[in-house]
């Protein structure tokens, strides 16, 4: 199995405050990996550092190529799609325009059109609402739209920041089911950050636990889920 993303000794800063203290992890091609941890542990910062949205030092390699010092918009062109916290919806634009924006770096018009249809098949609710302003969608629908928008890039790696945030449990089940399907069928590697550890561990095959900007635990998702000690001390369930 080849390593797709390799992060080494990552340190990130917000102004003078250091948020990540030498974090290292890797993600295999085709895997669904989750980063777990409490509020403020540095999960979101890790994703933001990968896309160079926060000042950081250390090594970030994607498919063997260094990503450091590349701008956010050029990192997208490596095939990394980031669904940010809060979903990043273009609320004043239509659902279909949001999907087109996901593919804005692509040039193959025919492929884009067929991919939009594919997204409507994955998420039928988006088809019903395709001319509607995206801001009028419910939270769950907006999260579906955010995932669909990311997939429009035809990414090799998708970064998801708290996809379950603010959603009803049933909607979350639905969404995670779709993520698993995308991972298996479309061969998209996924790195998902979650506070809902139980759910994320059911879905993922690899897991890392972060505490105060460091990796404190890593391993097979099933093993971590079955280890009561880790669950109680780090994951709180």
């Amino acid at each position: 199995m080849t390593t797709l993303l390799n992060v080494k000794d990552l340190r990130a800063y917000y102004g003078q405050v250091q948020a990540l203290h030498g974090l290292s992890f890797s993600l295999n091609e085709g895997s669904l990996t989750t980063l777990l941890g409490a509020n403020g542990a540095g999960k979101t910062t890790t994703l933001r550092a990968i896309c160079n949205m926060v000042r950081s030092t250390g090594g970030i390699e994607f498919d063997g190529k260094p990503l450091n010092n590349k701008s956010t918009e050029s990192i997208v062109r490596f095939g990394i799609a980031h669904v940010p916290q809060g979903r990043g919806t273009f609320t004043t634009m239509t659902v279909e325009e949001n999907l087109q924006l996901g593919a804005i770096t692509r040039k193959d018009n025919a492929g884009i059109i067929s991919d939009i249809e594919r997204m409507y098949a994955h998420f039928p609710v988006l088809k019903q609402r395709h001319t509607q302003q995206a801001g009028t969608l419910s939270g769950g629908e907006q999260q579906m739209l955010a995932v669909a928008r990311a997939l429009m890039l035809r990414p090799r790696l998708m970064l998801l920041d708290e996809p379950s945030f603010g959603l009803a449990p049933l909607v979350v089940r639905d969404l995670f089911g779709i993520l698993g399907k995308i991972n298996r069928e479309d061969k998209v590697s996924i790195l998902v950050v979650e506070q809902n550890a139980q759910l994320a561990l059911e879905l993922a095959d690899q897991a890392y636990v972060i505490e105060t900007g460091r990796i404190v635990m890593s391993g097979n998702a099933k093993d971590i889920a079955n280890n009561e000690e880790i669950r109680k001390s780090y994951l709180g369930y």
Partner: protein
Amino acid sequence: MELFTNQVLAGIATGAIYACMALAVVMIYQAIDHLNFAQGEMAMFSTFISWQLMQWGVPYWGAFIITLALSFVGGIAIERILFKPLAKAPVLTNVAGFIALFAIINSSAGLIWDFTIKQYPTPFGSAPFLGSQLISTHQAGMIGVTVLLLLGLYFFFQYTRIGLAMRAAASVPESARLVGINTSWMIALGWGMATAIGAIAGMLIAPVVFLEPNMMGGVLIYGFAAAVLGGLTSPFGAVVGGFLVGIFENLAGTYIPGVGNELKLPIALALIISVLVVKPAGLFGRQIVKRV
């Protein structure tokens, strides 16, 4: 009744110019959240360039097109050199930047072309339009060119990829970068387009107000009034606001005793203040609600 129709049509003609200026102001406001006080001076300078080209023997429409191209490039250059470095600076720093730009352009125009008033040609002539005394061919031309411009912009922003990318960059910059849009260049492009739109406004109004370095002062204030009335967050509102302000200005000048030509400008300022007091978001603007 004929006086009324006449004033409304004349109002629509000048309103077209205000609509262009308001649109230019709104495009830059959308991109960088600041009002460009120098928008009028930039338009004036573009108009002088076209005049100079015509003095050198270039025919009107040739000069028109060359001026648009030069203005587009000039607008991008101003953004890259002056305002990109100020992107993260406080509001007052930006305001100082705009005032500096205003003064620099105004004085340079005076230095190069001096402050005497110059005649500026119209390609449409000034005969009665279609034999009607209501409106002149130049006024009809002003309306026609503006309508063509607005249609072109609508199609650009609605149906082209780059238009979509520009809208995305203006509405949610962070998400725009995350789908791979170079937001910094979208801002520069917005400056280029706004400058070219301003140039059109300048070249269309110059036969009416005559060409001189201070020609756009009043026009820009009406443009601001239009943008505020329509809503600074809405390009569509800015255009509607432009036409409304043009009509309102003319009717007030004609029918309100004592207003006449002299008090027309204070009316624009009074309009700005009333809108800000009564409906700060403007007719079509969105109230920005921030979660705290």
